[in-house]
């Protein structure tokens, strides 16, 4: 039970720190773009709402998104983003620390940074190749299809990287390259409509998400390596 407790304790601290850093980065990087994109999104939604649309018979439970609770703009919205960032940060930290414990645990901040870069490749870069991060107003393919592709791509990339680093034969290296390429050869589910926001905004958002993701993962890995090291010495 000690090992479980130690992993959770380290991951909680790391996730808290990385989540805070991520929130600051987003506040200046992605958040202004989300607000800009929402202006277009709402204008388009209002246009669609004004156009006559029929609800099919038996669709009594049909409801529009506006009916659901959402945080008020300002402190409440920022607060929930902070909470969500920390929860996701702790989740990612648990995966990183647990995976590195399988290989005997992180021994330095530098080793942690390398694991963090692997996390960036697995959870930010690889999924973004097929599913570029979407600002509000960019309509994608059906959500479930995209979520499945996203998760499958992360798993395949993680397995591929592990085979490259820890595999012993050229054959495992070939399998690794095939695993990493497979999701992109199969292809991500694509949207049927072009984005409803300006191209420059759409592109700027993709860059902002990938850069903040890189810094988030670098922070997460470095913190995990430094803390794990301190923990063992103590």
């Amino acid at each position: 039970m000690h090992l479980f407790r130690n992993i959770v304790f380290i991951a909680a601290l790391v996730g808290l720190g990385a989540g805070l850093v991520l929130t600051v980065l987003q506040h200046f990087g992605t958040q202004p773009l989300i607000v800009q994109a929402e202006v277009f999104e709402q204008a388009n939604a209002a246009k669609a709402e004004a156009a006559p649309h029929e609800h099919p018979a038996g669709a009594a439970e049909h409801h529009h998104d506006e009916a659901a609770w959402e945080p008020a703009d300002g402190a409440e919205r920022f607060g929930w983003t902070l909470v969500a960032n920390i929860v996701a940060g702790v989740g990612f930290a648990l995966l990183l620390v647990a995976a590195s414990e399988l290989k005997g645990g992180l021994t330095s901040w530098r080793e942690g940074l390398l694991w963090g870069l692997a996390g960036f490749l697995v959870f930010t870069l690889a999924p973004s190749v097929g599913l570029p991060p979407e600002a509000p107003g960019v309509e994608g393919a059906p959500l479930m299809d995209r979520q499945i592709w996203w998760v499958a791509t992360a798993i395949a990339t993680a397995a591929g990287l592990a085979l490259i680093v820890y595999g012993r034969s050229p054959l495992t290296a070939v399998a690794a390259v095939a695993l990493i390429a497979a999701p992109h050869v199969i292809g991500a589910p694509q949207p049927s409509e072009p984005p409803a926001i300006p191209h420059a905004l759409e592109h700027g958002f993709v860059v902002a998400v990938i850069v903040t993701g890189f810094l988030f993962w670098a922070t997460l890995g470095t913190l995990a390596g430094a803390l794990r090291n301190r923990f063992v010495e103590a």
Partner: protein
Amino acid sequence: MRTASSITRPVALTSAHALPILFAALLGVVLIAGAGFASTPALHNAAHDQRHSIGFPCH
């Protein structure tokens, strides 16, 4: 932890280590699923900006 590892045999160590590591990873998956993938409207709206900003599929 130190004393335990010096007493336990290496073979027993791996199996004793695998389970807590697996559970820690599962806990991580649950947290990521809640923050990034759950479709409950309230959860989605609370985490909305974070989902877009991390690059999780959203909407």
